[in-house]
């Protein structure tokens, strides 16, 4: 099988995960945070698929599909919440959502 070797794939997956993490940590808009989360998930999916292909088993690919399903449902809930917040005419800033600190 030809193509780039495993480390390259893992490098891309790590880069995606890091970019997503930075997005989650640094951006304030909940929409962007959600997007960054998706990027992190995709990074991990890429790692799963890479290993699946490397070891010749399908486990990783099956797991990647499960992660996609989770990501999809998460986006549903997350976007729903964001729309609900926007409807209340509140500022879309994750730092302001801190009433539950107790």
């Amino acid at each position, binding site marked *: 099988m030809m193509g780039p070797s495993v480390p390259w794939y893992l490098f891309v997956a790590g880069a995606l995960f890091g970019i997503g*993490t930075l997005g*989650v*940590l*640094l951006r*304030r808009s909940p929409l962007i*945070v959600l997007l960054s989360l998706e990027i992190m998930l995709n990074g991990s999916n890429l790692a799963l698929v890479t290993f699946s292909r490397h070891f010749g088993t399908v486990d990783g690919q099956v797991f990647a599909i499960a992660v996609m399903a989770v990501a999809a449902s998460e986006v549903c809930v997350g976007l729903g919440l964001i729309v609900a917040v926007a409807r209340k005419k509140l500022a879309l800033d*994750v*730092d302001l*959502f*801190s*009433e*539950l*600190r*107790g």
Partner: protein
Amino acid sequence: MIAAAWLCLLAPLAGALAITFGGQRLSRRAAGWLSTASVFVAFGGAVVAFFAMVGRDTAAQRSELSTPFTWLSAGTFHVGMSILVDPVSIVMMLVVSGVGGLIVLYSIGYMEGEDEERRYFAYMAFFVFAMLLLVEGGNLLLLLAGWGLVGLASYLLIGFYHQRPEAVAAAKKAFIMNAIGDATMALGFFLLIAKTGTLSYGASFAAAPHLSSTTVNLVALGLLGGAVAKSAQLPLQTWLPDAMEGPTPVSALIHAATMVTAGVYLIVRTHPIFEQAHHVEDLAAGLGAATLVIAGLIALVQNDIKRVIAYSTMSQIGYMFLGAGLGAYANAMFHLVTHAFFKALLFLAAGVIIHHLAGEQDIRQMGGLKKFMPKTWLVFLVGSLSLVGVPPFSGFWSKDAIVATALARGGIYGWILFVAALFGALLTGIYTFRLFFRVFYGEPSALVLEHAGAAHGDHGHGTESATGHSEHAHGEAPQTMALPVAILAVLSTVGGLLQVAGAWHPFGRWIAQTGAPLVEPTTSQDWIVSVITVAIGLTGSWVAWAIYRTGRLAVPSAPGLQRLFEHKFYFDELYDAVVSRPAQLVASRLRTDFEGPYVEGSLVEIGHAGGDAGGLVARLQTGRLRVYAFAIAASLVVLGIVFLAVR
């Protein structure tokens, strides 16, 4: 013999338990009779054991130790739950249960109408049990157990009128003073265990001559401390007069006839130890002599009928200590027995008077009672003559024997003790008949006329019982009170014939089976001393007669001395200044300077510190999602680095 002795010991305990658990199901009267019956059963047991013992021939056969089971075991140290029946303990058993039974019987009349009669009778039966345990206990540890339990019973009964603050204070005082003695005794026992490994009488007495003199002196001092506290001798005597706050039968039983003489019993019982410690023996005799003089002097100026008798009790126990300290065990025990008779008689007769006068105890309020209470007059006269030591009453035989022993000891110390004892005899004559003439002669006071004159009316007893009310409309006292007094009067009259100096010594020979006397007066010394003592006692009585009956002599005016006596030689004030006040001062200083800032303050500080730490942790919980996410990410990174580094 042993079975009867066990019955004697356990019957009062059973009585006390039955009254306690019977509670309200028993009528008040039934509680009184149950208590009386249990003590008389004990007396029956003691009598049976006594005759069984008389039937045996040698001293070795007459001493029997019974150990049903081992009570305590620690390594090689064992203590049995054992009782010892021998000539000394049987005498004590007879006195405790016999006089005790009479006094409990008397209480039925005296305490009638009290609110808490059942409690009283349960305590009385419990006391008799504790006292019997003390005298029957087969080793020093059981003796100490009985010693503590009689202290408890004494505390409970002195404080019986718990509504009165003075009674509660007196009870606490008695308990604390006795606790000092208990502590010194326990320390003596610890030392004995450390050195001999045993507390049984036989083994520890056998080991006593082989101990170093320091050890044996310390052990004897510890025992003497206990004896002095329990018997109200100098310097731990101040609790006894205050103990008169209890009901009068309690004063008669515990604080005259039995418990306070336990110190004498202790010295006689442990005489092999004391005989190895001559200085401690001399100290005991000296303390007895000092007490008998000082208590006699204080008794001269007391105005409470019971306190006068209480001081005379201290004084007479001083004689017993003198005798026991000199090694005249039989004479000391003999005086213990006769004293139990005549002092119980005096207290019970005083109780009749107090009962009759609605609780009045001040002799200045009395007078002229002879006309109204002729029978009480007679028994009080018997008791007084016996106390002063006029032949043929019992006190004569026993007291003279002790005074003669002091003479027989010889040496300067013996002479000092002898003179003190004679001086005590003079004082006894004066204070006894001062009391007698004050109470029975002279013009009847308004109080006497009111109560005694109206002997056929109703009267409650006022200050002693808050709500007491009784209707014995006939005679001077109800039957249950009159009978014990009469029996004790007979015993006080003839009891001295147990032993006649120079002629007839059954009692002396009996006690000598347990402890042979160290000093024995010759017959001529006995007779000379008898004449002198009687003459001195009668002189004292004559002085009292001249002052308080005819008024021919006036009380010598010595305000300084009088104040000294009235303040009881300032012992209470001394202890207050030396012990109580410094202790209070130290306690209050510790409270303000140590407990406040350090103990309590540190608790507050610990609380604050916890709160502050919580506040710090709470600040971590910001509610900001990004901070949490950062914390997770950062800790993952740290974990990853650690993971890689460790690998």
